[in-house]
C-alpha cells in the first residue's frame, strides 16, 4: 500500500512514517502543509493520504479542506484525516461530498499503529472509517426520549459498527455471525429508528450519524 503523510509537526510526522514503515506500508512522500500535500498526492498518486487536520496557516481545518480537494480531484485516492476534534461536525463535513474512501480518526490514536493500519486497509477496500470514540460519544448522548432504548443489545452493537463505517461483511466478521444475520439486524434497526434503509453503505453512515446527532 502506498501512502502520503502530511503533518506540520516534524516529530509527529517522522514517528508516523517510521511506524507505518515498520508495519510494512510504503510511505511514498511526506508534506508539512496543505499545498505540499496536494502537490505530492498529484505526483505520487498514492492509495491513501494520511492528513493531519490542523496545518498552517490557521491551524484549524486546513487538512479537512485539502482532504475534500483530493477526493474531488482524484477519486481513486482515499483520505484518512487525523484530528484533535471529537466534534462529529468535522467528521460529517468530510463525509458530506464523498463518503467513500474517507476516514476520520482521533489524533491520539496515531501511535496505536494497528488501528491506523486497519483504517488504511478499510479505506483502500472502499469503506468509511469513523473513530469509535466519536460514535460511542454520540450513542452515549443523554436523551429525554431515547429511541435507542428500543434496540436490543446486539442491535446496538451493530448500529455502533455501522456508524463506524463498517460493511455488513466486516460487521459479521467482527461479531462472529453470518452476513445474513447482520442484514436482518440492520433491517430491524432501521425500522425501529424509522430510518429509510439505503442500499448504499456510505449513505448509510451519514444517515445514522445524522440521526444520532439530532
Amino acid at each position, binding site marked *: 500500500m502506498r501512502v502520503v503523510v502530511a503533518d506540520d*509537526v516534524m516529530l509527529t510526522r517522522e514517528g508516523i512514517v517510521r511506524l507505518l514503515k515498520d508495519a510494512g506500508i510504503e510511505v511514498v512522500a511526506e508534506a508539512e502543509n496543505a499545498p505540499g500535500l496536494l502537490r505530492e498526492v498529484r505526483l505520487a498518486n498514492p492509495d491513501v493520504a494520511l492528513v493531519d487536520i490542523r496545518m498552517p496557516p490557521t491551524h484549524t481545518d486546513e487538512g479537512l479542506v485539502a482532504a475534500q480537494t483530493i477526493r474531488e480531484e482524484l477519486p481513486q485516492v482515499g483520505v484518512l484525516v487525523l484530528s484533535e476534534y471529537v466534534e462529529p461536525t468535522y467528521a460529517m463535513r468530510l463525509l458530506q461530498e464523498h463518503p467513500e474512501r474517507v476516514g476520520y480518526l482521533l489524533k491520539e490514536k*496515531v501511535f496505536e499503529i494497528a488501528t491506523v493500519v486497519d483504517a488504511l486497509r478499510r479505506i483502500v477496500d472502499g469503506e468509511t472509517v469513523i473513530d469509535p470514540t466519536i460514535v460511542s460519544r454520540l450513542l452515549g448522548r*443523554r436523551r429525554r426520549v431515547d429511541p435507542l432504548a428500543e434496540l436490543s443489545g446486539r442491535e446496538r452493537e451493530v448500529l455502533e459498527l455501522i456508524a463506524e463505517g463498517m460493511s455488513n461483511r466486516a460487521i459479521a466478521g467482527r461479531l462472529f455471525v453470518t452476513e445474513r444475520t447482520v442484514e436482518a439486524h440492520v433491517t430491524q434497526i432501521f425500522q425501529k429508528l424509522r430510518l429509510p434503509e439505503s442500499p448504499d453503505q456510505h449513505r448509510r453512515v451519514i444517515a445514522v450519524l445524522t440521526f444520532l446527532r439530532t
Partner: protein
Amino acid sequence: MLIRSAVTRLAAVGAGLAAGLGTLAVAHGLERRTTYVEYSVLALTLTLAAGVALIIAGLIVSLLGPAAQLGDLALLAGLVWFASVWVGWFKGPPWVRSVGMLAAGFLFPLLIHLVLAASSGRLHGVFTRILVVSVYVETLLVAVGLAVVRDPFFDPYCWANCTDNVFLLRSMPSLARAIEAADRWFTAVAAAAVVMVCISRLVIDSGPARRAFLPFALAATLLSGAVVAHVLALRRTPLEDPSAPTFRAIFIVECMAAVVLAAGLVWATVRMRARRRAVARITASLGQVPPPGSLGAALAQAVGDPELEIAYWLADSQRYVDAKGNPVANLAKAPGRTLTGLVRDGRPIAVVFHTAAVPDLEPAIGAAVRLALENERLQAESLAQLAQLRASRIRIVETGDAERRKLERDLHDGAQQHLLALSYELRLARAQAESDGDTSSARLLTAATRGAQEALGELRSLAHGIYPAILAEAGLATAVATLAETALLPMEVLAAPDGRYAAAVESAAYLLVAEGLDDAARRHASHVTVDIVQDAGRLIITVDDDGSDSSSKFVHLADRVGALDGRLMVGPTRLRAELPCG
C-alpha cells in the same frame, strides 16, 4: 457704490420718490410720445408701482433684513427703474436725458443680481458670480461706448431720445449700431443663463431653500422672458414702438417681474424676522428636562428647515457629535445649505447645519438658547463618553476571548504535540522491552502509555473548556449541538439559527448555554431545553430546566451580556439573555 448710512438711504428714498413723482409730471406734460407711461394708465400705474415697490422693498430690507446690502441694491434698482422715463423727457435738460440713457442699461444687471442674491444675501457658486459680474462689466462697457460714440440724431431707430447726448466725443453711427446689436444678443444669452441657474437651484436645493427661492425664480423667469422677447421683437421691428401691442406686453411683463421681485424681497425679510424671533423663543417651548435632540427639532421648526442638524463640539476629544452622542462625519457644504458656528463664553459649543434661506442665524440665537445648547452639549458629551465606555467593555471581553483562544491553540500545538511524541517514545520503548523479553518493564511502559493517553484526553477537554474551537469554526448552532452531545443530562435544542454573528455575541450566547447547563446539573435537573431565536435584531437565548431553584448570580455572564448592551434575566430555573446582533 453701495449706500451705507441710514441718512443716505433716506436721501436715496427721497430721490427715488421724487423721480417717481417727476415721472408722473413728465407723463402728464408730454406732447411727444417717447415713453410707455403716456400710452396707457395701466403702463403708468405699473411703472410707478414697480419703481416704488423696489424702493420700499429696498428700505424694508436694508432696515429690517439681515443683509443690508441687498436693500441698497433694491433701492438702486428702484432709482434706475425710472431712468427710462427720464430719457423720454422731451423738453427736459439734455444732461438729464443723457444720464438717463447711461443709467437705464444698469437695470438688468441690478435686477438679476437681486434675484440671484435674494434668498441668502450673497451670490452662491462660482458660475453665478461670474455671470453677474460679467453682465455688470458688459453693461458698463456698452454704456460708456454708446455714450462716447452714439449720436442719437444719426440713429435711424431712435425713439425715446433722438436729440441729446452730452457725453458724445465722436459720432460713429455704425459702430454705435454694432455695439447695440452685440449688447442685445449678450443680454439675451445672459437672461437664458439666469433662467438656467434658477432651474438648477430649484432642482438641487433642499426643501426650505427651494421654497424661499420660488418667488425670485418667478421674477427671474418673467424678466428673462421679457428681455429675450424684446430682443426678438426688435429683430422684426427695429424701431421700438410703445404703441405696438407686442412691445407693450413685453413692457408690462417687465414691470410685473420688478413687482414680484420687490414683493419677494419683503416677504423673505418678514419671514426671516419671524423665524429669528421664533429661534429666540424656542427655549420657552422646551420642557424642564428635554430629551436629547429636542433642541434640534425645535430649532428646525423655528427655522422652518426639517433637515436642520446640530453638531456639538467636544473639546476633550476634539470632535463633533450629535445630541445622542454619536460621532458626526465632516459636515460638508451642500447646495442651499450653510454652517453657522455658535460660541458661548468664548468657547465653541456647536455648529448648526441649515438652509441658506436663513443666513445669519448666529445673532438670532440668544443667551437662553445658548444655555440650552450648552446643556444639550453636556448631555451629548456624557452620552458619547458612555458609548466609549461601552466600546471599551466590548474590547475587554473580546481581548479576553482572543487570549483564551490563543491559550487553547498553544495547548494544542505545544503541550499536545509533546504528549503525542512522548506517547510515541513510550510505545517504541515498550516494543523494545517486549522484544528483549523484559516483561516487567513492558508492563510498566504499557501503564505509562495509558497514562499519556489519559493526559491527552484531559488536555483536549481542558482546551475545549478554555475556548471551544468549534464555536469560532462552525458557529453557534453547531457548537451548541456539540454541547448537547456531551452534556451530562439530556439537553434538547428547540431552535438555533444557523447564521454567524459577531464573535463576542456568539461566545456570550455559547457561555450562557454552557453555564446554564452546568448550573442545571448542580441543581439535579433531569433535562434542559435550549431555545435560541433571532427577532428584530436581537438574539434571544433561553435555557430552561426542571431542577430546584437556582441561587447563582452569573456575575461573569452578566458582565459579558452588559458589555454587548444586552439584557440578562436570571429566574429560578430559567436563564435568558437578549443580545443585539445587528
